[in-house]
């Protein structure tokens, strides 16, 4: 990744449109060097084990800018550092991630390597990516990106290359900066705004299966379908859950679960367990979710404005759960 070649920088060809390939399953794994993010990566490696899946490891570096540093551009120091042969922050983390992926069985064999550089306004080093491709056309990408802040960088990366799933760790590094009450955690911001499914890894352990929560809506049914496909990628078991607010609505909850079960079985997969507790959805989901690798929720489909004022079960669970949560959303095209 250090072979930055300023003389061979080629601007992207104008007019070319990046057409996302329909069939490939594309995962964006955001790492920051924390243990949580590498756990997310391990999980992503299982999801992306097949030939038809690409994995992109992303490290977002905040842009070097001089307003905060008293007017002296940080790049002046950065140039001296490169002169000493010091690497940019993040490269070590990305290389560690790559080595982890390579160690996993699916990544054996020969890989072609290609380095891509893209200029970014206001930063001398720009975005850098290394693309590894194997004989079957499977791709592994290491990307070091600069952006004004980490969440925006992740969302921009999605905009450019459209992924099916974003995986990130609920890392302490990404907690809101101290004394800045107005800045939500990176993971939360991405989960709110990303136009695709987002997996927030917390103490993520493999092998305990997915707990899919449904409220019977069409959107939730669609989420069940999407996640059933994802769970199949890692041979994870699927359990279903629908929470009834009171005794009266219990039959409805049972109906929701039954419908979801029918859908999953029609896809040729199995349902391990199903739960229909009565109570507050948020508490019940968090309680039951402790026994699973992942809590899977569908995006509420509320507009941002409504979400802002009313909140949503998905967001609340994401905030409060002690375990990994995946918010499933139909990928926008």
């Amino acid at each position, binding site marked *: 990744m250090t072979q930055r070649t300023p003389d061979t920088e080629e601007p992207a060809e104008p007019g070319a*449109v990046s057409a996302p390939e329909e069939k490939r399953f594309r995962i964006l794994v955001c790492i920051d060097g924390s243990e949580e993010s590498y756990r997310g990566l391990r999980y992503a490696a299982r999801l992306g084990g097949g030939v038809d899946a690409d994995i992109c490891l992303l490290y977002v570096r905040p842009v070097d800018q001089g307003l905060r540093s008293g007017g002296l551009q940080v790049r002046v120091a950065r140039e001296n550092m490169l002169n000493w042969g010091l690497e940019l922050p993040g490269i070590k983390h990305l290389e560690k991630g790559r080595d982890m992926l390579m160690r996993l069985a699916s990544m054996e064999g020969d890989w072609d390597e290609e380095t891509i550089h893209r200029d970014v306004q206001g930063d001398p080093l720009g975005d850098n990516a290394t693309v590894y491709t194997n004989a079957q056309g499977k791709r592994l990408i290491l990307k070091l990106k600069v952006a004004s802040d980490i969440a925006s960088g992740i969302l921009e990366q999605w905009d450019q290359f459209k992924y099916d799933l974003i995986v990130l760790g609920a890392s302490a590094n990404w907690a809101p900066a101290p004394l800045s009450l*107005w800045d939500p955690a990176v993971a939360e911001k991405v989960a709110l705004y990303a136009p695709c499914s987002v997996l927030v890894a917390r103490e993520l352990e493999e092998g305990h299966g997915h707990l899919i929560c449904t409220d019977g809506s069409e959107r939730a049914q669609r989420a069940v379908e999407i996640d059933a496909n994802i769970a199949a990628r890692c041979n994870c078991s699927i359990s279903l859950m629908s929470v009834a607010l009171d005794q009266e609505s219990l039959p409805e909850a049972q109906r929701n679960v039954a419908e979801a079960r029918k859908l999953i079985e029609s896809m040729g997969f199995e349902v391990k367990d199903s739960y229909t507790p009565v109570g507050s959805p948020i508490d019940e989901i968090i309680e039951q979710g402790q026994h699973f690798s992942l809590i899977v929720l569908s995006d509420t489909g509320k507009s941002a404005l409504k979400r802002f004022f009313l909140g949503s079960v998905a967001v609340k669970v994401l905030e409060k759960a002690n375990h990994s949560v995946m918010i499933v959303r139909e990928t926008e095209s």
Partner: protein
Amino acid sequence: MVSESGSTEPTAVESISSRFDLRLGANLYYFWEKKWFFIALLVGFVLLSFDPPEGLTRAGQIVLTMSIMATILFVTEPIPLPGVALLIIIGEVLLMGLESTEVAKSLMNDSVLFIMGSLMLAVAVVRQRLDKRIAWLIVRMTGTKTTRVCFGISIVSGVLASFIGEHTVAAMMLPVGILLVTLTSDDPKEVRSLAAVILFSISYGCSVAGIGTPSGGARNAIMIGYWKEFFYDPTNPETFVYLMDYAKWMLYAYPMFLIQVPIVTFILFVTFRPEHRDLSRAIVRLRAQVAEEGPMKAGEWVSIGLFFLVLLGWILFSQDLGMGTVAVSGAVAFLIAGLVRWEDINNGVNWGVVLLYAAAISLGVQMKDTGAAAWVAQSFLDALAPIGGGEGIGLWAAVSVLTTAITNMMSNGAAVAVLGPIVLNMADLAGESPIVVGFVCAVSSAFAYLTVVGTPACTIVYSSGFLKTTDFLVVGWKMVIASTIIMLTAAAVYWPLVGT
């Protein structure tokens, strides 16, 4: 050319426009990101819709409202900070009805010239790549023990920073710090605490030193400017004490910096407990790297010479010529000597900062002229009097706490620019010496140890990627307490000895 998605990459323009459609239309991303801008507008609108409170003129009310809005925007940054500076200029013309030329004139003075000159000088100095020489000098003096190396880094960074400003030294020393860390171990996990100790030694060394001399930071220059602007009267010899000269400032502040350096090292080691007690492995490799550089080149000697000439200029002539003139002369000397290209200076300085300081100072002067500063000062004093903050050490502590709180959230220069007129008025009204209270404010503005954005040095070392934002909190509060105690002791015991 193959891209990450397998096809060609979209152009930058495309990606930006698509993002815009997506967010603006679909989920109000734009308004969410800019919410604090609209909140500030709303606050301004509400405040201006009231009649001015007793004792405050309408113009004063407008300036005060603008200051509150500017502070909200400085802290939350919904729009780029230089944009806030431009809004201040527009507000002074449109809301206050001032002449455009008058506003433009109020933007430039010696403090602003000094900020501009010292930034240009900073680029010129950092560009000379003297970092390896300095690193070698430090380890030759200190040996290989981690504690001693860190103390050496703090004191050398500090002494340099006290004269040429913390941003210059932090930028120059950061590669040294990272090199020592990476030469010790390649695995970031293994050297986390070591990295924290070394990098904080640089940033806190610079921060505690920034108070040492008038050229140590823009905030000092701003305070000196305010003293002169508010209290100096050429016809009254008694007011001549408000013309602060370089040596007198040093007499007040330099001992405080020297006392703080060992405390910095102590606090850092107690807090982080580095994994490696000895750095000989790294230092051997450092020696090899320095040896590759060969002997000092003529250009390096010339730049060191120029650097000392600028220092002398500040010490000897800043009273007559102005600190700004000396700084600008230094920058131009580097250009004439061919040691730095204008393009490097142009790219290395963020000119928005100059604009920002200019607008903040202009607003500060308006605060004084309209009587808004006096009104706020009186209100503060009335509020502080019942809790013993109306005079003496209580007032100093109150000023210090207020400044520390503000400076941790925004640029320390801007904090002094906005707070300066208020605290100087407080001193005047309470019968305290404006010199002492001004010093308390300027020195406290260096106590931005808690956040990444607090001081330039913190921001620069944070860019290394080795530190977490929470690290600043963990160690910062100890630094704030230690520094505050030292400063208040100096104000009570030492400053009276040198005459206030």
